[in-house]
């Protein structure tokens, strides 16, 4: 119950922030631009639109996740708004969960609108829906799962470092995670100390690349049901662990 109230207030804060709308407008502009680009490239219009559109949704979604995520908890401590929340019958872990769900909810609504934008663009281009569009929908869902993961580790970082440090770390984590397939192959082929580091990194850093199916989907390829289940399970486990770690750190910390 209290988690829900905290989440709702976090959502309200994001929705009343102008920055959010600026980012969404940019995402729409990018989808619009890929529509125009698609019209001057004959034959691969749909492929281009799907690829660029998904990239735009992912890019702006992750940007919002990181930029709101770094301040999610630290801003409340800095401005001392936590004082009048944590002295109520609210547990610290409930506060962390509420903040997390509030941002994830914001990102869900964002992704929904941006996804609608992409589908409108698709409809405008092809004048019909086809079976392959279902896989575009799944790809959008995977992009959302990326945001769920990014939010979780951004919040973890911000629970023990400054907003700027957290942003840098979160960005690095995201970029490395996007190449996690390469890390896994490196850990398999390398030797000695490199192998140790590559293996650790491959398991600590989130497997973002598995959640990126846009190239395949743009080609009209299918996404297997098992992949969806696996990715969903992975995203829940990984972000669950990150949020739990953030809550543990928050439980012990002094509020200045």
């Amino acid at each position, binding site marked *: 119950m209290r988690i829900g109230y905290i989440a709702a*207030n976090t959502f309200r804060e994001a929705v009343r922030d102008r920055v959010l709308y600026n980012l969404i407008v940019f995402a729409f502009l990018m989808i619009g631009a890929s529509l125009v680009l698609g019209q001057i490239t004959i034959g691969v219009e749909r492929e281009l639109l799907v690829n660029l559109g998904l990239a735009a949704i992912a890019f702006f979604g992750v940007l919002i996740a990181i930029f709101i995520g770094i301040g999610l908890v630290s801003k409340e401590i800095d401005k*001392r708004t*936590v004082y*009048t929340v944590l*002295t*109520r*019958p609210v547990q610290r872990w409930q506060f962390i969960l509420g903040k997390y769900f509030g941002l994830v909810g914001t990102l869900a609504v964002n992704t929904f609108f941006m996804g609608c934008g992409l589908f409108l663009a698709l409809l405008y281009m092809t004048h019909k829906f086809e079976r392959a569009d279902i896989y575009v929908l799944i790809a959008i869902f995977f992009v959302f799962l990326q945001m769920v993961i990014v939010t979780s580790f951004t919040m973890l970082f911000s629970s023990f470092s400054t907003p700027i440090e957290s942003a840098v770390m979160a960005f690095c984590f995201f970029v490395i995670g996007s190449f996690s397939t390469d890390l896994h192959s490196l850990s398999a082929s390398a030797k000695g100390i490199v192998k140790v580091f590559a293996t650790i990194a491959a398991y600590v850093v989130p497997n973002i690349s598995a959640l990126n199916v846009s190239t395949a989907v743009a080609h009209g390829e299918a996404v297997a049901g098992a992949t969806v289940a696996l990715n969903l399970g992975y995203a829940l486990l990984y972000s669950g662990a990150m949020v739990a770690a953030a809550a543990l750190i928050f439980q*012990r910390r*002094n*509020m200045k």
Partner: protein
Amino acid sequence: MNAIATFALEKFYLTGFWRKHPKQALKPLTLEVPEGEIFGYLGPNGAGKTTTLRLLMGLVKPTAGSSKILNGTIEDPAIRAQIGFLPEQPYFYDYLTAVELLTYYAQLSGVPAGERQRRVASTLDRVGLAKDAVHTQLRKFSKGMLQRVGIAQAILHQPKLVFLDEPMSGLDPIGRREVRDLIASLKDEGKTVFFSTHILSDAEALCDRVAIVANGELRGVGAVAEMTSSLGGNMEVVWEGEGANEAIKALGRELRVAGAITRSVVPESMLNQVLDILRAKNARIISVTPVRATLEDYFLQKLAQTSGGAD
């Protein structure tokens, strides 16, 4: 029963870039506040008042010692449901209106849904926030208005025990007066109030008992009347006739002369001696009135006593 009890509660902050320099913000503090009291926690800026409140509120962990709130621990949500807290220079979610903010806090404090709206409205009314202000975003509020919102959120859920850190700061004289009345009315409702201030007259007018802290150290606890009477009273003597002035000056008293009238403040112990001199010199005694010692006198005396040894 005690509403608050602390046992050698102590806090060191680690300061400096590498957090290597421990700074003792609060020396071991043992204090008891019975239920139903208005308790003033007095001290100059930097005395450790806010630190004590953060420790009591569980926002900061003590270096050593412990505290009990309503016979339980502040870590327990059931205890937190029964307390209210106004932080120093409060700041709130500035994208909310006063009504939205208080509704949110009412939700978190477990005020039943059916009662929230009425409770929020009556509390805002009680702290004197104008009707047109309550639907304005808090970012447009003045410091004094924020202070009122702060007091409102501390009493909204009808807590048994209220902690207020500098509740009158940022308010104009009328506002201070209103907050004083409000604190007094909380006591009438049977609540316990623990408030910090560096303004002695606020405490003098309100408190059953006060504690005085300076440099993180407790310097005295007691009823205001006890403290001021321990200083011993002074007497103001006014007379007419200059014949006695030299002899009284010789006792080491200061005189203020206005025309034929002279006045002097003398310790009670010296009063008879002074009156004898006046009679002997045929001065006409106009009045003898006790001068009440103020908390400020006590406070200054307490600070003077121990400040030599500090740091």
